[in-house]
């Protein structure tokens, strides 16, 4: 066995890549190949998990050169949690995509329905990029991975092929490209100052104007990619106009790549000053409020969900900003929990919203209560996901918000608590707009539809939303995983 044994980290990145190639070559078998590749990737991630559980931090010097000449892959608890999350969401969304694209009629005599033929190669390339980001310990490699992600993500965003989706996709492409180029110039400045590209070189560096410029560039670029207010302008339209499985991937995973890299930079680098952190917190506050207000005003369900992503991202930045220059020693954990909670809940919510739109035929919020057809399971999933996003106990979102507020109380940062509470109230308000539509029956003119039985498509959103609530009970083990290998060098 050890005679031929590529390490599991490389496999976690390359297995989806092989899957993408196979799915591109054989479009007819794409769903089967895709699910198989996601399964194989999950197995590789389990092996990574085994290694991380034993050793804490695992590194692989690709090519045997080692940093700084070569590129290293590195996994610790945080990376492991993100890998596991990605595998879970990919599996659920993949199952959801099976039925979402099943009914698509073949268009203009083409041999394969377009969406089904192209969803899987793009989705698997996206997974390659995401796993590559989690495991990378090299700045330039991160740039390349970001580009892999953004091309695949744009491809997914425009899969529907409508004018609105294409317009939003092009705006997304431009924002994403500009963000990546800022990161690239930042990498150039880092190389100018330190002559290295690995994270370790960054850790040993003295602060200097060039490094400050590098950090500023990378911060702005990544904030653009993570859609931090006021750089969020591309997100709502792009996420709302994509097809449901694509929206779920974009909202749950893709924006997290920028956030994850920011976390890693904060861990590695000479830390940005208090002023920058406060600025991030203020912008996060802006996102919480503006995203909340826009979600209140949204007319369509998917647009509401997309705006709530803006607000939730803002909350994660507030969590990052909270700790002050003492390092992110404590608040990074709250941020990581919120990232996980948001990803699981939002994937479930977008899939549920897609189901609701498919069954009812539209997703205008004001007319949800007039529909005679009620997709009960999808509505249940939506409600469960909303519970986690609002942050009601015992959901994972509750644990994330609680650890954020607990830390803020400990440090006496009452203003961040106020922001969190305001965000919570706003989310209650905007989600109840949709939920009341689900629960009111008095405005239905036609006789209520018969129950149509359960569909396979209902399973993924329900499972994801259930997990978003239920995982809160497993917060202890999740925190234990996050602390493996001690990212941010703290002991709990």
């Amino acid at each position: 066995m050890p005679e031929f044994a590529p390490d599991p980290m490389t496999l976690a990145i390359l297995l989806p890549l092989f899957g993408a190639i196979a799915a591109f070559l054989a479009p007819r078998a794409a769903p089967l190949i895709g699910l198989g590749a996601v399964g194989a990737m999950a197995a590789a991630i389990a092996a990574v998990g085994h290694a991380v559980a034993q050793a804490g931090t695992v590194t692989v010097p690709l090519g045997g050169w080692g940093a700084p000449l070569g590129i290293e892959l590195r996994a610790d608890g945080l990376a492991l949690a993100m890998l596991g999350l990605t595998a879970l969401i990919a599996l659920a969304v993949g199952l959801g995509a099976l039925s979402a694209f099943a009914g698509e009629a073949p268009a203009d005599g083409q041999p394969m329905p377009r969406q089904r033929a192209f969803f899987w190669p793009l989705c698997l390339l996206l997974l390659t990029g995401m796993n590559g980001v989690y495991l990378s310990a090299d700045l330039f490699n991160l740039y390349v991975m970001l580009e892999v992600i953004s091309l695949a993500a744009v491809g997914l965003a425009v899969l529907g092929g409508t004018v609105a989706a294409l317009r939003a996709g092009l705006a997304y492409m431009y924002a994403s490209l500009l963000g990546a180029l800022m990161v690239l110039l930042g990498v150039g400045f880092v190389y100018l100052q330190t002559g290295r590209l690995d994270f370790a070189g960054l850790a040993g560096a003295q602060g200097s104007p060039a490094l400050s410029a590098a950090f500023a560039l990378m911060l702005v670029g990544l904030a653009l990619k993570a859609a931090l207010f006021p750089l969020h302008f591309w997100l709502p339209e792009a996420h709302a106009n994509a097809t449901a499985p694509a929206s779920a991937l974009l909202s749950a995973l893709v924006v997290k790549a920028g956030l994850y890299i920011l976390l890693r930079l904060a861990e590695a680098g000479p830390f940005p000053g208090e002023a920058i952190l406060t600025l991030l917190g203020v912008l996060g506050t802006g996102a919480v409020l503006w995203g909340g207000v826009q979600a209140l005003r949204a007319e369509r369900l998917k647009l509401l969900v997309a705006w709530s992503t803006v607000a939730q991202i803002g909350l994660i930045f507030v969590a990052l900003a909270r700790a002050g220059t003492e390092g992110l020693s404590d608040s990074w954990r709250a941020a990581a929990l919120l990232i996980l909670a948001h990803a699981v809940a939002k994937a479930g919510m977008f899939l549920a919203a897609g189901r609701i739109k498919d069954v009812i035929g539209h997703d205008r919020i004001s007319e949800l209560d007039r529909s005679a057809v009620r997709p009960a399971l999808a509505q249940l999933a939506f409600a469960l996901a909303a519970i986690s996003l609002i942050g009601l106990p015992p959901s994972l979102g509750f644990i994330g918000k609680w650890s954020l507020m607990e830390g803020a109380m400990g440090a006496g940062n009452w203003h961040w608590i106020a922001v969190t509470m305001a965000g919570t109230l706003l989310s209650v308000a905007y989600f109840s707009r949709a939920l009341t539509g689900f629960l009111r029956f008095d405005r239905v003119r036609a006789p209520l539809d018969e129950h149509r039985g359960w569909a396979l498509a209902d399973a993924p959103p329900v499972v994801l939303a259930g997990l978003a609530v239920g995982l809160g009970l497993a917060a202890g083990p999740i925190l234990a995983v996050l602390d493996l290998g001690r990212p941010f060098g703290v002991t709990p």
Partner: protein
Amino acid sequence: MTEATIYGLAGLAVFGLGLMGVLGAADRLRRLVALNLCAGGAAMVLVASSWRPPPAAPDPVPHALVITGIVVMVSATAVALALIRRLYSLETDTDA
């Protein structure tokens, strides 16, 4: 004033011009060209960082990075152009 300084500053200026173009231009094609200018500027800063006073040979690592960057950028450009062409077809069909 070495070659690295001259071309590095020129690269930054090009990046800045590209940034202005991206933020200011209304036209889709022009914004894409502006993004390409940004990429050229960033690449120029990287190449300038590899320069060493002769007779020393330059550092090959940034050269490899820039070649990677050029290929990545042409890919992204092609995708954006495909979106532009498709959008144009759809818009002229529906608006006409």
